[in-house]
């Protein structure tokens, strides 16, 4: 199960989360170290660059709200489907009780579960946007995440909006058992209904995206983008390594490798994601498609080199 791998991988390294209110693992929240190039960075500088290291282009993890803000038109985001909370349906208490994990995640993140969804515009295009927050139990998908994602697709269908999902996840939320697994089918079905309604869906896969989330709505998008360096897969790297009993090739499951294996359309740096997503929506949104060729607001026939 990928969550496991990810938690293990994360244990080993010094790890910081960028939040509006400061970072947890640095003493004062003013300075942080880039895990890639090891340089010490001023927190304010990092935040101004959308949490991308100005020296080596490392993409720091972002909280869901920051990811959405980096993507949508300023001020356009309005959260939807707030107030859903997990009911701990299995009273799951093997290992650490699920209820306490939930409580701690809520306190740490100020969220009620790992998915944040809302309506917004991107370069004016009406969308429903969603983002998963890895701080919340590894952004695993339980009933609440699945419900929010499904509702997001449904609202987009009803209101003729596009959907943009920023996905990070360790996979299914095992503490909700089969109820969690079935969210894969539920979100995939919702995405499929949007598709059959002729509305566009763009996903942006960020580090890390694994398991039941990858294998459902995340990759059913019409156009799939990924952030540089993002690790993406179904089975976690440790499980794969155990299965094949040899070490993994360099670059395995990275965004760049997935692109060359034909799984994603483009690796998009965070700073360009808004414009790239907006461009795609320009092609696929029904309203834009309705604009007749040669209409007044379109550019001249041939922008350069032509004789027309």
């Amino acid at each position, binding site marked *: *199960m990928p969550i*496991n791998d990810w*938690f293990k991988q994360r244990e080993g390294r010094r790890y910081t989360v960028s939040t509006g209110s400061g970072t947890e693992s640095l003493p004062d929240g003013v300075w942080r170290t880039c895990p890639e190039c090891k340089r010490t960075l001023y927190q304010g500088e990092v935040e101004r660059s959308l949490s991308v290291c100005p020296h080596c282009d490392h993409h720091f993890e972002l909280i869901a709200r920051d990811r959405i803000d980096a993507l949508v038109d300023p001020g356009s985001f309005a959260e939807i489907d*707030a*107030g*859903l*909370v997990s*009911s701990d349906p*299995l009273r799951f208490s*093997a*290992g*650490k009780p699920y209820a306490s994990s939930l409580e701690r995640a809520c306190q740490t993140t100020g969220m009620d579960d790992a998915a944040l969804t809302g309506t917004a515009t991107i370069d004016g295009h009406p969308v429903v946007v969603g983002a998963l927050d890895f701080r919340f139990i590894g952004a695993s998908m*339980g*009933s*609440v995440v699945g*419900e929010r994602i*499904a509702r997001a697709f449904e609202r987009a269908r009803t209101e003729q909006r596009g959907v943009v999902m920023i996905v990070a996840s360790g996979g*299914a939320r*095992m503490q*909700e*058992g*089969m*109820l*969690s*697994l*079935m*969210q*894969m*089918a*539920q979100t*995939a*079905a919702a*995405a*499929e*209904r949007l*598709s*059959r309604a002729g509305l566009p869906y763009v996903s942006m896969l960020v580090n890390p995206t694994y*398991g*039941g989330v*990858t*294998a*459902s*709505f*995340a*990759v*059913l998008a019409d156009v799939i983008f990924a952030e540089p360096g993002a690790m993406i*897969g*179904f*089975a976690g790297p440790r*499980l*794969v390594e155990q*299965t*094949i009993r040899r070490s*993994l*090739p360099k670059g*395995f*499951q990275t965004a760049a490798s997935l692109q060359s*294996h*034909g*799984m994603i359309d483009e690796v998009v740096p965070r700073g360009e994601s808004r414009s790239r997503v907006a461009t795609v929506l320009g092609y696929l949104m029904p309203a834009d498609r309705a604009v007749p060729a040669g209409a007044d607001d379109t550019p001249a026939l041939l922008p350069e080199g032509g004789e027309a």
Partner: protein
Amino acid sequence: MARFVMEFERPLADLEEKLAALANLDIASTPQLAAEIAELEREVERLRATLYSTLSPWEKVQVSRHPDRPKTVDYVAYLFDDVVELRGDRRFADDQAMYTALATLGGRRVVVIGHNKGHTTKENVARNFGSPHPEGFRKAERAMRLADRFGLPIVTFLDTAGASPGLEDEERGQAWAIADCLATLSAVRVPVVVVGIGEGGSGGALAIGFGDRLIMLEHAYYSVISPEMCALILHKDAARAPESAAALALTAEDLLRMGIADEVVPEPLGGAHREPETVAGEVGVRIATALDALSEEDSDGLLERRYERLRAIGEYNETD
């Protein structure tokens, strides 16, 4: 070849061995032996009843994995006529871990899709132990589309520990292949009847594992994660799988209670492999009954209900 003995069956198996040894002795020369044998037989019977009538979730998982347990192709052989196996994804390979076919159940023409475990090691190696590669899911998707185009209901049999987690499976897009199955299965305009016959391991099971009716065998399981892997994560100890199995609520009864499964097919004492034909017969009746009921709905209604069914799964509190 020795009979396969599951861990929890050991005490019973020991008694049965003793009984067999006694039976080889000359009863005539030792008169009290007959009484002893009769006593032992009663004890075996009591133990068997106790043992099997109260299987724990973890014991059920073991039963679900029993090599002699009837597999997809056994149900096909027992129940279906005029079988035409559909092979290959038309792109890369014919994945033996996934079985797809045109088949007829008592006059009902359907498409069968099932995880394809074998009984022997040799069979299982050829079939990757029933864990499909991406091309297995793409074969399944091809079968789903064929069923959709020609209006043939779909019957699936779940029996996998999960999708294959190899390097090349990842490279060929395991997640993409599974997601495409989910999307396609959610949208086929024909009835979909799912039967959990053995293991129902995670996304690899789900790819062909939801629809308009879910029939679970009594000792089949269906789980978000294997008990061993769950124990490894929670306790860093796979040996604590029995606890995890209980925590995950993965049994047929659990699924029925949660509203995910529609019905549970009882198994004979000891498991389906003790009376495979009887079990197959009952499974056939359940499938036929479900198909006949579903065939009365029009496809728009069918689709809508399938979606609502999925959407109803999940538990949470809404505070606003």
